[in-house]
């Protein structure tokens, strides 16, 4: 069992407005998110001595954020990253607090993901050929978008396990249904039916627009501190039971072996660290850049057996009221998209029972999982409890 179990907590979460066109810089969005999280925790900005951020060259720096919060921090850290970076930075924060270097860390992701850099539209071809391992074996064939990269995995996996397009639709419908209960979800007021889903043409098979995450302007923030310090915060602490991450694929080049993903390896270590099993999980945030990515992780994290994931989602198990209420604010398919941090925020709110008395609350939930996926080669996850 992990030695940090239950000794650290998330004590504050917050977000900026989300939109297609913020009209602000990422620094403004980060300030909005940070201030919301600080208020949520009942802290002063100067209580925070570490700031961390992940970005794709599309954000402000941690130093800038701290500066304009009026804080002169001991430690700042900006990493290149997307999915799974939330979980990895939380692990870094815990490690630095454990080492006695810091007391309280604010982690944020801020981006003009719609009006600024858009991941889904692909990248500069020459940059990609050089930046990706083996890029010259991929880019000349027109494969430059994560939808195409992950789609290659999806087609094979669906072929082997009997997952159908309609099964993918159930993932989308479940999350869209949650978004209808969340007034702050970007697709609130835009419900989805299976008929509409199936009638929507693919952008890149097997994915249509509904299978793909939103691209929005948005900032999110999370505050981590020790369980001891958490007692002084205004919010109900959500304790970290265990974490695990993996930043490599078994193969040198991930298109050469599309049958394994990093999540397969993270799962075992995660449950061991947290001292729980999939049966103990009451509520989930599963990284959903694409619908199939959820399916693959449900298999990896042991929520349904290989070959049975399609039936699992078709039975409505991802919906509130199902066996594993997942992405209960709408997820990245229909709430917002900050490479996973919005999903982490939601799991914290569920475990605090912030929605008690409404149809958004997963009743009496005690233990939650939050998973990240930057691709088949990068995964990070954590298990939290109230």
């Amino acid at each position, binding site marked *: 069992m992990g030695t940090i179990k239950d000794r650290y907590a998330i004590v504050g979460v917050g977000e900026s407005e989300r939109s297609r066109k913020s009209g602000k810089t990422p620094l403004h969005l980060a300030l909005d998110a940070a201030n919301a999280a600080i208020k949520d925790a009942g802290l002063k900005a100067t209580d925070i001595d570490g700031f961390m951020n992940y970005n794709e060259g599309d954000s402000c720096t941690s130093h800038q954020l701290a500066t304009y919060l009026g804080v002169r921090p001991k430690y700042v850290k900006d990493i290149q990253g997307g999915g799974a970076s939330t979980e990895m930075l939380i692990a870094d924060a815990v490690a630095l607090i454990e080492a006695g270097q810091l007391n309280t860390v604010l982690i944020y992701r801020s981006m003009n993901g719609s009006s600024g850099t858009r991941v889904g539209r692909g990248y500069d071809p020459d940059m990609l050929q050089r930046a990706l391992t083996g890029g*010259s074996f991929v880019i*000349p064939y027109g494969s*430059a978008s994560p939808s195409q990269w992950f789609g290659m995995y999806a087609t094979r996996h669906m*072929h082997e396990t009997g997952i159908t397009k309609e099964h993918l639709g159930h993932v989308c419908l479940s999350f869209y249904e949650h978004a209808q209960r969340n007034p702050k979800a970007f697709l609130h007021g835009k419900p989805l039916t299976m008929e509409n889903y199936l009638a929507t043409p*693919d952008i890149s098979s097997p994915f249509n627009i509904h299978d793909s995450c939103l691209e929005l302007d948005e900032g999110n923030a999370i505050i981590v501190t020790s369980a001891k310090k958490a007692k002084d915060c205004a919010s109900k602490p959500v304790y970290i039971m265990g974490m695990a991450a993996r930043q490599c694929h078994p193969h*040198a080049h991930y298109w050469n*072996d*599309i049958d394994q993903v990093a999540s397969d390896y993270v799962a075992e270590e995660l449950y061991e660290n947290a001292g729980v099993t999939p049966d103990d999980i009451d509520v989930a945030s599963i990284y959903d850049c694409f619908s199939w990515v959820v399916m693959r992780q449900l298999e990896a994290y042991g929520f349904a057996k290989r070959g049975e994931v399609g039936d699992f989602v078709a039975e409505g198990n991802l919906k509130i009221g199902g066996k594993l209420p997942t992405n209960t604010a709408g997820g990245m398919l229909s709430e917002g998209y900050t490479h996973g941090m919005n999903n982490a925020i939601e799991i914290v709110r569920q475990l605090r029972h912030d929605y008690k008395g409404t149809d958004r609350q997963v009743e009496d939930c005690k233990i939650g999982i939050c998973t990240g996926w930057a691709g088949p080669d990068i995964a990070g996850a954590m298990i939290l409890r109230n």
Partner: protein
Amino acid sequence: MTQAKTAYQKPIPLKDIDNAPYWDAADKHQLALQKCDDCNAYSQPPGPTCAKCGSENVSWEQFGDDIKATVYSYVVSYRPFLPGFQDELPTIIALAQLDKVPEVKIMGNILNCEEKDLEIGMPIQMTWVDITEDRALPQWIPATN
């Protein structure tokens, strides 16, 4: 100077210190694969060392121009994400599993193939498209036997 409309608009494979033998062979309409002399693993894409065992003893094996494979997986792209693909939609991007070396999978487009005929396991063969005066791109077409 503006480029002629007929110029090749798609990204051209960039040769580097590690992959040059692969692309040099492709320019001659041949397939070459990097292989580790110590653990016998093929490295595709090639690298500075064998990524399986770390050995620096890597060499190149020539496979000629009769390259058979089957479709291991694929995506059909209806939207261009890179220059040059806008006129050839939908684009079939496939992962080809080599008959002779099944552990090696090579990405490419399947040309002369209708989407409705595309399926996993389908036999395909390598072909080469001359894209500039001195460069050729390995591609795939349905196998004719």
